[in-house]
């Protein structure tokens, strides 16, 4: 048992626990917070895998921006637990059953079919953040320039859309 493996196992446990916690929590705010924790764990995983930039952007964007947005909306809409109804009672057991099967299938597929060679990079190699970041920048702005620009437009569109969706209703109400 190396340090990496122990670390990995602990973090994996935390990730799964927080995910399940998010799933089962009745309070929406608790679910959001669980998810934040999950994201953070995944960010650490990224670090372990030698992708510091991704880790940082994960924390910044996902945990920092997206979850905050979620929390804003939860606050807007109320975090009350929904009243219990019994619509589609058969759905939950079936969903869980199928999900388990999916997990098994997915694992099997990915493990047997996708055979990556070699181990992961040593952390010492990639913990040099400047090198990873520089490499990433070079690749991003040379080979992947077009997707980069398109993504920026995408973000713009999303922004405009989000704003427009709310503004339109106000105009209708006034007229």
């Amino acid at each position: 048992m190396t340090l990496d493996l122990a670390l990995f196992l602990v973090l994996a446990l935390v990730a799964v626990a927080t995910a399940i916690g998010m799933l089962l929590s009745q309070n929406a705010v608790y679910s959001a917070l669980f998810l934040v924790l999950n994201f953070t764990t995944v960010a650490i995983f990224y670090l372990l895998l030698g992708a510091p930039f991704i880790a940082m952007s994960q924390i910044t964007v996902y945990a920092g921006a997206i979850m905050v947005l979620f929390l804003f909306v939860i606050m807007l809409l109320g975090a009350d637990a929904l009243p219990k109804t019994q619509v589609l009672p058969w759905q939950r057991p079936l969903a869980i059953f199928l999900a388990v099967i999916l997990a098994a299938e997915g694992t099997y597929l990915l493990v047997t079919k996708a055979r990556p060679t070699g181990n992961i990079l040593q952390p010492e190699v990639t913990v040099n953040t400047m090198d990873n970041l520089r490499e990433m920048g070079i690749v991003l702005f040379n080979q992947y320039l077009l997707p980069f620009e398109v993504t920026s437009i995408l973000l713009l569109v999303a922004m405009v859309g989000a704003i427009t969706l709310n503004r339109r209703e106000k105009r209708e109400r006034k007229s």
Partner: protein
Amino acid sequence: MHLSETVNIGFFFLAPWLVFFPVIGLLINMIFGHRFSETVIGIVASLASGAAFVVSVLLAWSVAAGGGEAMSVPFAQWIHIGALNLDWTFRVDSLSATMMLVVSGVGTLIHIYAIGYMHEDVRFKNDVGRFQRFFIFLNLFIAAMMILVSGDSYMMLFVGWEGVGLCSFLLIGFWYEMDTLGRSSWANSNAAKKAFIVNRVGDFGFLIAGFIMFYAFGSFQFDEVFKQVHNIAPATIVAITLFMLVGVAGKSAQLPLYVWLPDAMAGPTPVSALIHAATMVTAGVYLVTRSAPLYSAVPQAQNIVAMVGAVTALFAATIAAGQYDIKKVLAYSTISQLGFMVAAVGMGAYVAGMFHLITHAFFKALLFLSAGSVILGMERGHHHLAHAHGHDDHKTKQKFKKGKHAESKEEHHEEEHGEVFDPGDMRNMGGLRKTMPVTFWLYMIGTLALAGIFPFAGFWSKDEILLDAAKAYPVAYYLLAVAAFFTAFYMGRQIWMVFFGEARHAAAAHAEESPRVMTVPLMVLAALSVLGGALNLPGVHTLTNWLEHTVTLVEHEGQVASWLDVSWGGLNPYVALLSTVLALLAIYFSWLIYGRNPLKAGQIDPLKKPLGAIFTGMENKWYVDEIYQAIILTPYTKISYFLADVIDWKFWHDFVHETVIAGTYNWISNIALNDYADQKGIDAFANWLGTATQSFSATLRKVQNGFVRSYALSVLLGVVFIIGYLILK
């Protein structure tokens, strides 16, 4: 073209015009007749018939110029099926030329006469528009008769045979909605039907003969048949000739198929003269003469023919002596004279028969037409009276009639122009000698010719027949001699009743003579009746020589009595003397009974008391019609009704058609197919399809429950399955 060349070639090519001229005449009258005046219609028709006569003359001359040789003039192909080859070919030889001349010659004279007769007749019967139709039919008759006499095969003859039968029907029933007295009745159409149907019986016999002939000889053509006569078994020929005799009996009014001819007097008098005296009824005699080779080969058949003719002659003569209608007397006289002709040709005396045919045509036509003149004279008188005296005349009439029969009562109550007054009843006539002199003399000439008084035409022809009968067939001779006696008797009776004595009816007293258009043709006929004997005078024998080119005469061999053997150029003085004495005796008797004490109005026939039941039999035609009615017609009608009502209507229609067929069909279509197959079967299936689809879709619709979660679940389900499949593959 030089005349000599014409003589060599001859006018044979004109043969088809024998038929064409009358057809053209009838077509012109049919298409344009309604625009013509009566005179023009009559002239067109008479010219057509006259043109046919001119053609006949030319053809006869061509035959004579050619030495009597027969010529065939092919005209058109008709039937060519298998072994049967029938063409329309004209045969011009001495026999057919003779017939053509008689038919067209007498026919033309009658056409001219009819112009005047029909002019008055349509006016007495109040239908002026029917004038045109009469001449169309008359021309049609001439055309059909020409086809008959000019055909060169038995079938072509039959075509003409049927054609004249049709024209006879059309013309007898000319006034189809009336009876002879002008009352609305079925009588005339029944008479026409009777003629046609009885003729049909005869035609049936002719056809059977034709079938046997084709079977035995393989052909209908005269030449073909006559060539092979010796090769065929005599029994077959007997069969052929006897069946042909049935046809002759029908067409030439012999026993037992003569019953139509007296009824045929319902037609206008020119019809009676032309068709039922001179031409159509002689077709049978022509047929036998034409078939001379056939008959000469089978003496048994000849015997039968001769006997039929002789018996008919006597039978009809007895009936004629008891008739009161002027035309009926002449009708039975015709039957009797036809009996003479048929007996003659049956005995093998073809020339004698044809000679009598020709002379009979002359004087019988003359007699009929004169009778027509008499009838019209009576009508004119009646008309004159009705107009002049208005309603007073019924009183005048009462003076003359003693109301002895039902007719007079009707005449009392229904006094209209000639409605129920019978202009043909001899009992109404009398003393017409004074009011209609021309007609009287013409009638006298005809009577003397018919009675066989020297030197009129009838004497020569009848004498030849009697001579041949005396030589070969003594039984026939006795029958014919007695018939000749009766002939003279009833003709004398007629003369005394009609022309002598006092008028028994006011109409007779006021009778008027006929116009020249009617009397002039009669004069021509009278001249022919007087001079007609010249055709075959003993010693000269023009007709014999003429006909011998076509008809081989068989000289009767065997022992004859010495007194019969005396021959003054063909004439035996004893026979001639005997027949003349008989005739004069008969006329004397008739004078004793009818002439010496002329009948008064309402007086019954003087012969009635002495002869009693015999005279009643003669009066009533020996009840032959009644016998036919009882034996044949009534059962036949009963059978027809049975077949029609029970078998056809009740069984076939009601049961088989309605119940069985229609019922089954209805059951099949309504119940089996409609209810079960269609509604319960196909409809049910189709509806089931619809409902099944509906319920299936209703079930499927539950998938769309609107819940996103379940949609997502189904996506997951799909993913799981696909991945599973990929793994397992």
